[in-house]
């Protein structure tokens, strides 16, 4: 199977995010970056599928849109076992909406004729949760979202989809298809030293976003970023752990009445 995995570089979940001077994006100096978590699970699912269906011509190709610095997540994916990569160079990713980003991805991968495209369910930065579904629509592929497990069958794929409140369902669909992958369905591998070494010899095709002829003005325009409004007035209990704990227990007894 020829599998394309769409990945995104996002600020690491533990890094401090602050609004920048423009009020339209975050301060990106000193920010730590990582591969989006559900994209990492999509990559893992692709690598496992390739290993399970070890027929001739099996290939895992990662594609990302982002600045030059997003090359870090491409190298990580190649070190983990992806065969090659397509890097759509775009410095203005935050100003494009999901349709705009999906249009770039569609233009970059349409000639690859993959059997399967996997994308993470949702990015950890903007959290629109749509790029994969729009990509399927633009390429005319059937899709399924929130997928935890993918099995190849004689006629296509059988996938396990997460529903709300602890329910699941299996879905059968033909290939080529697009799936968005939920975190936690598989266990992520680490890159081996050998993998890191091999990654250096693998093909990374860089394409300028403008050269794809797929620029679409944003319909959803991000105007301003602010600190969230507090939904409750929080009483912060300070002091040493022991002091804070004593203050809390007092509140639980006298105000919340649970002790």
């Amino acid at each position, binding site marked *: 199977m020829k599998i394309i995995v769409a990945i995104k570089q996002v600020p690491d979940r533990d890094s401090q995010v602050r609004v920048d001077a423009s009020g339209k994006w975050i301060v990106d100096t000193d920010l730590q970056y990582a591969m989006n978590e559900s994209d990492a699970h999509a990559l893992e699912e692709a690598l496992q599928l390739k290993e399970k269906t070890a027929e001739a011509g099996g290939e895992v190709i990662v594609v990302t849109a982002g600045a030059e610095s997003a090359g870090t997540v491409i190298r990580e994916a190649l070190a983990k076992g992806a065969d090659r990569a397509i890097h759509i160079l775009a410095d203005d990713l935050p100003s494009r909406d999901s*349709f705009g980003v999906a249009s770039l991805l569609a233009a970059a991968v349409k000639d690859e004729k993959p059997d399967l495209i996997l994308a993470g369910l949702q990015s950890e930065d903007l959290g629109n949760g749509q790029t994969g579904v729009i990509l399927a629509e633009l390429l005319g592929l059937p899709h*399924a979202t929130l997928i935890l497990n993918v099995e190849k069958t004689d006629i296509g794929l059988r996938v396990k989809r997460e529903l709300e409140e602890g329910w699941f369902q299996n879905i059968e669909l033909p290939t080529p298809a697009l799936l968005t992958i939920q975190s936690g369905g598989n266990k992520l591998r680490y890159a081996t030293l050998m993998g890191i070494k091999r990654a250096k010899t693998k093909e990374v095709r860089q394409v300028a976003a403008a050269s794809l002829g797929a620029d679409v003005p944003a319909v959803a325009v991000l105007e301003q*970023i602010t600190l969230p409004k507090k939904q409750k007035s929080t009483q912060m209990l300070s002091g040493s752990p*022991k002091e804070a*704990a004593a203050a*809390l227990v007092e509140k639980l007894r006298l105000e*919340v009445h649970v002790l």
Partner: protein
Amino acid sequence: MSGILVILQQRSDNKIARINWEALTATQRLGGDVTAVILGADVQTAAAEIAAKAPSKVIAVEHPLLNPYTADGFVAALHQLIESENPTHIVFPHTYQVRDYAPALAARFKQVLISDVTAIAEGPVFTRSIMQGRLSANYRHAGSGPCFLSVQAGAFPVDLPAPAAAATVTPFAPTIDAAQIRTKPGEPYRATTQAVDLSSAQLIVGVGRGIKSQENLPIVEELAAALGAELAASRPICDNGWLPMERQVGSSGQTVAPKLYIAAGISGAIQHLVGMKGSQCIVAINKDPDAPIFEVADYGIVGDLMEVVPAITAAVKAAKQ
């Protein structure tokens, strides 16, 4: 273009869940004639429930191929309805089902869904969370096409004027060919029988990524035991297999509303918050003072849970003696 469509979703028992009324409430902020839309193979019961509850008009979109739900079927049916109605806005409740098809539907109109909206201001300006809830972003819809948006569960408390009389229900019969439905969905199932019913628990101690490793779990287990509380967890803890799935709170797990919810090392991503923000009292313990969990907390302690939680356990034991 005129009027607003709000696309409601019926449950498997043909009833309408609360998030739909919240979407209807949010829709009223936009101004304009509201038409509620319900679609499926048989929606008469649901349409009657909606008609009795509020908007001026209800459209019942029926076709045998709309049950079971498929993205292909719903996109085809709603594409035809939207072309026929030509609305300014299309509003959805932000459910897993909507996340599955609405982005494709919007893309068919060269539009993008403004998803998981938490507030609507003059303009209209739509607010949604970004960066895992650490920041809020305001969006405006540009261009001349219809605007698609979905609203977050719990963000718009139900506030609907009592209707003078039941609305009229207008049928709409889309044309769908069986060959258009490319996916074959199976029956929903539960992985395990739920042995733990967190929804009736009065006291809950929830644990998140901040616990760092499975070996540290006894720290929170001891606090739960001292309080007589149930232990719950955010998704990553259950994904790692450190606690069983049935203890997961959030959009993919259980929804809880205890008297007391202590969130230890939970940053407060929206997927977790929707499952517990209805708790009467929320205590948050986190090393990051900017963690979004503090936005919904009544009491907050900034610190390392490895130190703070054992201190609380000791204080609770002392108080109970």
